[in-house]
């Protein structure tokens, strides 16, 4: 059986969930998973089995799934030992369950017996028409359903990134980055042993999922490379896919009769295959998350010409270097007409070049006006904006210092904080109006996340990059995908400035 929409809905949008093997011991998976399900706002029915029938976390448990009413639960979250699972799944299927997430260990990852048991498990779920997730997995998260069925934290904010990972730890990593940046997750699943359902199967579901705009995955070994790439190409045709691969440097050297054979290492082959199907490859967890977050929250650039706008010198110079160093981005030469227009807004000491360095010459309305001016220009495809939040950082020191009660101090604090929020809002609004990416970078996003600059970037649904280099790297990924689509005559699927980049409640 190839799981269909019914099975994936059972996994990601279950009408009810039953935790098999709920425990009264707070250290056990059977306790933590039930807790996480109850603690994050899931609205469906929650059921649990417990051998003694003890109440767990206020849930009246049943001793066996036999007592579960039919048709109330679509998903069984399995925390029971291996020996119990066959009977459990048979009863679950009879009660209408269509997806099973197994945390149970001791299957294919262990020994010969475990591998045999895993094969039997796959055959059983196939027979029963149940989507098998795991075994030996960490859990599943689905924000449209407020579902947090997993044996670890966190539960991320809602958004458009769909995560699938061969390693549960990286599901947590990506969700932690989501919590840190505010750029949200739609679905996240740890494939565990991927006995029946592998990472690329989840990605294929995401490609059809209205809640997901971008797919983000961690993979290690890929036994069926051709099959994997074939499926991935279909996903990449529908939405951006960001792939991080472990084991990238192993197996580089192999015995080969030819130079060509030894140069075509595993890693270069994988890399080429991803380029060929339009997927994005990232080398580190932050690069992967930030690429996905940027796809989810910024429009694709139509070209590679970047303008850097900064309120202070050094940042602009270094960012211009990073853009220039990037193989596929271009630091646009400032057009004469744009220079003339900027002259109208600034005293003559500004850089008169790209990077556009305001050199402290800005007044109350300069930054929103300049953002609008540079982003609207035909010669500019993307803008990187630096310097947001500096004044609010000073305002914070004033506000928390010994002279905070002074009326003039209070007035300037309020002014700076209002202005930085306004600039961040302008960067978002101008991006939406022009359909061009505007990336804001400041380490204040990390140092003082409640600074009204970065906090407002977050509130607009976008990512405030911790450094300009990271913004440049993310922008490079967007351009590479845009170019891939353009060259092949593929329309860029609607991305960014949609679901991800809207006002947020939190």
């Amino acid at each position: 059986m190839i799981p269909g929409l019914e099975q994936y809905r059972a996994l990601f949008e279950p009408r009810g969930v039953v935790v098999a093997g709920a425990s009264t011991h707070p250290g056990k998976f059977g306790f933590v998973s039930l807790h996480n399900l109850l603690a994050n706002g899931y609205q469906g029915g929650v059921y649990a089995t417990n051998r003694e029938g003890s109440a767990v976390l206020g849930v009246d448990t049943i001793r066996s799934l036999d007592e579960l009413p039919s048709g109330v639960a679509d998903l069984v979250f399995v925390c029971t030992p291996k020996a119990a699972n066959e009977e459990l799944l048979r009863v679950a299927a009879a009660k209408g369950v269509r997806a099973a997430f197994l945390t149970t260990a001791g299957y294919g990852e262990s020994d010969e017996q475990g591998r045999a048991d895993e094969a039997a498990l796959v055959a059983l779920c196939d027979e029963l028409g149940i989507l098998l997730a795991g075994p030996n997995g960490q859990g599943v998260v689905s924000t449209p359903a407020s579902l947090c069925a997993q044996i670890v934290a966190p539960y991320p904010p809602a958004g458009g990134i769909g995560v699938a990972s061969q390693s549960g730890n990286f599901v947590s990593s990506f969700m932690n980055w989501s919590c840190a940046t505010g750029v949200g997750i739609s679905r996240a699943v740890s494939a565990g042993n991927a006995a029946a359902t592998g990472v690329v199967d989840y990605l294929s579901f995401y490609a059809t999922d209205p809640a997901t705009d971008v797919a983000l995955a961690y993979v290690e070994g890929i036994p069926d490379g051709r099959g994997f790439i074939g499926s991935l190409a279909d996903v990449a045709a529908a939405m951006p896919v960001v792939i991080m691969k472990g084991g990238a440097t192993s197996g580089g050297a192999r015995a080969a009769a030819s130079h060509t054979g030894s140069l075509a290492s595993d890693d270069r082959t994988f890399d080429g295959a991803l380029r060929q199907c339009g997927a994005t490859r990232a080398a580190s967890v932050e690069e992967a998350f930030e690429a996905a977050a940027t796809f989810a929250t910024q429009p694709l650039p139509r070209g590679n010409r970047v303008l850097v706008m900064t309120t202070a010198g050094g940042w602009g110079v270094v960012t211009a270097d990073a853009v220039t160093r990037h193989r596929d981005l271009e630091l646009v030469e400032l057009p004469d007409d744009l220079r003339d227009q900027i002259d109208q807004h600034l005293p003559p000491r500004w850089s008169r070049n790209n990077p556009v360095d305001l050199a402290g010459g800005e007044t109350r309305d300069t930054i929103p006006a300049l953002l609008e001016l540079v982003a609207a220009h035909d010669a500019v495809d993307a803008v990187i904006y630096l310097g947001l939040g500096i004044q609010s950082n000073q305002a914070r020191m004033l506000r928390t210092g010994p002279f905070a009660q002074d009326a003039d101090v209070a007035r300037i604090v309020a002014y700076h904080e209002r202005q930085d929020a306004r600039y961040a809002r302008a960067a978002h609004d101008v991006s939406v109006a022009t359909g061009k990416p505007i990336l804001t970078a400041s380490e204040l996003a990390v140092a003082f996340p409640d600074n009204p600059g970065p906090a407002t970037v977050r509130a607009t649904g976008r990512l405030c990059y911790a450094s300009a280099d990271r913004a440049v790297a993310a922008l490079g990924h967007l351009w590479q995908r845009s170019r891939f689509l353009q060259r092949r005559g593929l329309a860029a699927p609607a991305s960014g400035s949609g679901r991800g980049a809207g006002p947020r409640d939190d």
Partner: protein
Amino acid sequence: MSRTLSEAESKAFLSAHGIPFAPERLAATPDEGAAAATELGFPVVAKLCGDGIAHKTERGLVRLGLTDEAAVRVAVGELLGAAMPQDDATGVLIAPMISGTRELLAGLATDEQFGPTVVVGIGGVLAEAVADVAVRLAPIEALDAEEMLEQLQHRELLGPFRGEPAVERGLLVDVLLGLSAAATTNADLLSVDLNPLIVHDGRPVAVDALVELADTQVAP
């Protein structure tokens, strides 16, 4: 198990897929070598040819820049003398010395997980140390081939270089498409090595070739 074709067989096989090679003659004796060199025009290179020979440069089985008949006779004699029984030597290949500052490589490799792949990169004797290659799964399209060239770290070598014109990219793309076609039409093709692919007057010319086939004659 696999077997390799001799250089002459490799070139014949690949020529059929449109890979551009320098003209050459197979000489069995020093006199035949000298005659071939005169016909092709000096300077020439001489290479021992045989089914069992790979990595000719490392074994000193390539003589470059031979400028007259006498030098060719000496070289052919020495190369025939250097042949070992396992080389299955069939003679010495005489070819015009193709000059060009830039040496590329192109070929096919078979990946355990991904199957046949097309490869292009910076070639010559430093190829493995430089390790600047782009790989794609076969079959590829012209756009893939162009993006492979664009992906090379040293892609500026494809532009005008030291008084030589820019590489005609279309011809390089054709080489890669030819390799791709060879892979998709020959299931037992395991690898192809075109190194160096010398850029002469902006045009890529293969001066060596090694074709490796799966050995289908292994007893069941």
